[in-house]
């Protein structure tokens, strides 16, 4: 009979092997799924794991999708490491996009190229403000931040619908619920011609380095994590739990808001009801699969965006539904949670 036995020390090897095993399990279940759907499993896997990285253009698309995921996940990692459960990054992302739109719509032909900085800054401030509501309610009334942040996502969606259907509706837009296209000066600059990759990639890279330094080399980053690992020790040390709460929520809200701004003023170029693409929720998976570590999250963000692109390819080329993206994302998270058991336990074979 197979049994689980607690390890004396968490296994270092399995900390790294567990995400790989989880990926392996995801692939196996994927094969079974494609077979059950009557498709060639190899062709199916090719859509998800080969075509997205085959050549330059898909790599660009991969980065376009990975950038917002990574930026949001970097912020969430601060939250989760501080034991603050912000699962409303999607809402902060939407409000970030709305705030960025507010600035972008002020632009006209004569505006300066630097306006785009204000657009991005507005996104950060918008996301922070939205996360700040959660922090305030938690701080003042001890309201559960999981519920509050999640519910604020739906409020944000309503705010978005109101704006694109009312005050910000493009008068020349054939009555579609969307804003007018942003002026070129308000758009996020691209890195190369012919690719949709924007300077967001550079910001995300800077974020990775910045987060590593913050978490592992600054005392503030250290104190936030102590609050997450052992609240009583943080109190004993004199690290304020209120400051940790605010810092974690404002950082993650700001990051999600920035991602919203980069998206709405980048690939999309106008405010539409389709701005919320689920990045805020997918980033939770990115954060966990990446072990809340800056480098790990780079890899998991790329993996997750492969699933997005794979889903689209499976739709257009194999005639499968795009929901496969969600199925793969969910599979990966579930297998990871299961495989993580092996970090703290070992499997042993015992009679009886």
């Amino acid at each position, binding site marked *: 009979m197979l049994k689980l*036995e*607690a*390890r*004396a*020390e968490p296994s270092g090897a399995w900390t790294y092997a567990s995400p790989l095993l989880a990926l392996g399990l995801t692939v196996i279940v994927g094969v079974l799924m494609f077979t059950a759907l009557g498709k060639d499993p190899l062709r199916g896997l090719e859509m998800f794991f080969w075509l997205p990285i085959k050549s330059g253009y898909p790599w660009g698309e991969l980065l376009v999708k990975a950038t917002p995921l990574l930026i949001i996940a970097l912020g969430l990692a601060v939250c989760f490491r501080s034991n603050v459960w912000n699962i409303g990054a999607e809402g902060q992302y939407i409000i970030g996009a709305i705030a960025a739109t507010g600035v972008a719509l002020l632009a006209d032909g004569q505006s300066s190229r630097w306006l785009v900085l204000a657009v991005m800054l507005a996104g950060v401030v918008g996301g922070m403000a939205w996360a700040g509501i959660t922090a305030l309610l938690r701080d003042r009334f001890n309201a559960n931040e999981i519920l509050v942040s999640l519910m604020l996502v739906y409020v944000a969606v309503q705010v978005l619908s109101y704006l694109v259907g009312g005050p910000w509706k493009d008068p020349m837009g054939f009555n579609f619920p969307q804003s007018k296209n942003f002026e070129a000066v308000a758009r996020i600059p691209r890195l190369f011609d012919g690719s949709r990759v924007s300077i967001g990639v550079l910001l995300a890279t800077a974020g990775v380095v910045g987060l590593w330094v*913050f978490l*592992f*080399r*600054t*005392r*503030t*980053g*250290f*104190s936030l994590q*102590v609050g997450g*690992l*052992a609240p*009583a*020790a943080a*109190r*004993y*040390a*004199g690290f*304020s739990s209120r400051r940790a709460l605010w810092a974690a929520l404002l950082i993650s809200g700001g990051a999600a808001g920035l991602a919203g701004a980069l998206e709405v003023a980048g690939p999309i170029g106008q405010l539409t009801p389709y701005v919320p693409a689920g990045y805020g929720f997918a980033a939770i998976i990115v954060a966990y699969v990446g072990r809340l570590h800056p480098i790990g999250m780079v890899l998991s963000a790329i993996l997750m965006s492969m699933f997005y692109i794979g889903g689209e390819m499976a739709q257009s080329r194999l005639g499968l539904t795009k929901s496969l993206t969600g199925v793969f994302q969910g599979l990966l998270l579930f297998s990871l949670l299961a495989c993580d058991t092996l970090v703290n336990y070992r499997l042993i074979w015992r009679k009886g």
Partner: protein
Amino acid sequence: MSPPRLQLSGITKRYPSVVANSDVSLTVLPGETHAVLGENGAGKSTLMKIIYGSVKPDEGRVLFNGQLVHIKNPQEARALGISMVFQHFSLFDTITVAENVWLGLSKTLSLLDVTRSIESKATEYGLDIDPQRPVHTLSVGEMQRVEIIRALLTNPQLLILDEPTSVLTPQAVEKLFVVLKKLASEGCSILYISHKLHEIRELCNACTVLRGGRVTGVCNPSQESNASLSKMMIGAEPPQLTHRAQEPGASVLRVANLILPREDQFGVDLEAISFEVRSGEVVGIAGVSGNGQKELLCALSGEDVRAAAGTVRIGRIDVSKLHPGRRRRLGLYFVPEERLGRGAVPTLSLAHNLLLTRQEAIAYRGFLGGWIRVKQLEAQAAGIIARFKVKAGGPRSLARSLSGGNLQKFIVGREIDANPKLFIVSQTTWGVDVGAAAQIRGEILALRDAGCAVLVVSEELDELFEVSDRLHVIARGQLSPSVATALATVEQIGEWMSGLWDHSVQAHLGAKAGLVDGAQEADHAQA
């Protein structure tokens, strides 16, 4: 001759990183009070769990009344006639004594039956308790009585007691011993787990000593001395401390009329606490745990800043409203009783755990709290590990990988290494082996001799008598006046611990608080 009540032979239990019991044999005769003596981590608890059926041995045989038994779980153990009173009570605070006892019994009995049988056992053994009282109103000693009655209701042939006196006042210990002696005289065998030598010598007529999971001696404790028992237990005699006379200097910590209502439902209100600690002296606070020590220490450390202004002063500075970090800058260093999770973060390295209270390795403090110089931090941790002889892999070892005693040495070392002006330590040597405990006490005395003001809060009277210059007692959130340790007796301190203040203390407290608590009057009537 009847067979032994319990006979263990060749018991071995391995855990992934440690062998808890190795080839342990033990024989308990009917009516015998058998001590199992050993330090923390010697394997006493594992052995008892094996007897009680909550752990299965890897090898070895258990004979009960001459019959080979395989006890699968505690229910089977109880059916055989084995009962156990654990060190940590399993009682629900919000329901009554009778309801608690009822929970563990067969459902065919009515609550009234249970109440009656509790009362009859209570009278039979002089375990005075009211079955209708909610558990949260009981003192720790009374809770233990409930646990003992619960064990006795199954009419056990073998009663196991795990460190039963660690929560009791000396007087309550005497009472407990009367009950145990009566039980033994009726033929019930008792397994008595402890590391307190004088108790074992007084109560038990057989003793098995464990060290590192092995039996290192079997003896009759009444014919042994503390020194010979201790030698079997730790392999050496504990070093003697020298406590040299010294005039205390200026006042360092002054607490004046500290009143603090409880923060949670089952906490204790602090009632007008006043005392002083001067440089170059060790002040001890004795008391049974749960009498306000936790609350007092949080108010002193700054983890609780609800105290009124002017009630807590360090030197001349009013620190009542200051957070722990600010108090630390004034020279207050504190070792809390919980090591893992409060004194140290279990999943962080020893080096990173320094950052909880030490800032020497922090540069550029202005930016995000400062830059952590990892090399310097690890060197600092290595220094503490060497100076305080902490057994650890190195500065990068995780805090939770250390044994309790070694982690305590590291935490005490971290705080002492900061050259405190005021050093506060709670439950100095809980779960710490004898050698490490002696070392820590030695460090405390060295700190005192160097002119530091030291406050020690502990349940262990022996320890307090050993290190303190003056003693206070805390009971129900009130603090007694201090007595010079040289003039104090265990009996007097023990009475104070149970809240039985004599008249001079009453007058002292009455004058402080302006009233005398009604509950105490009732206690006097009872006494």
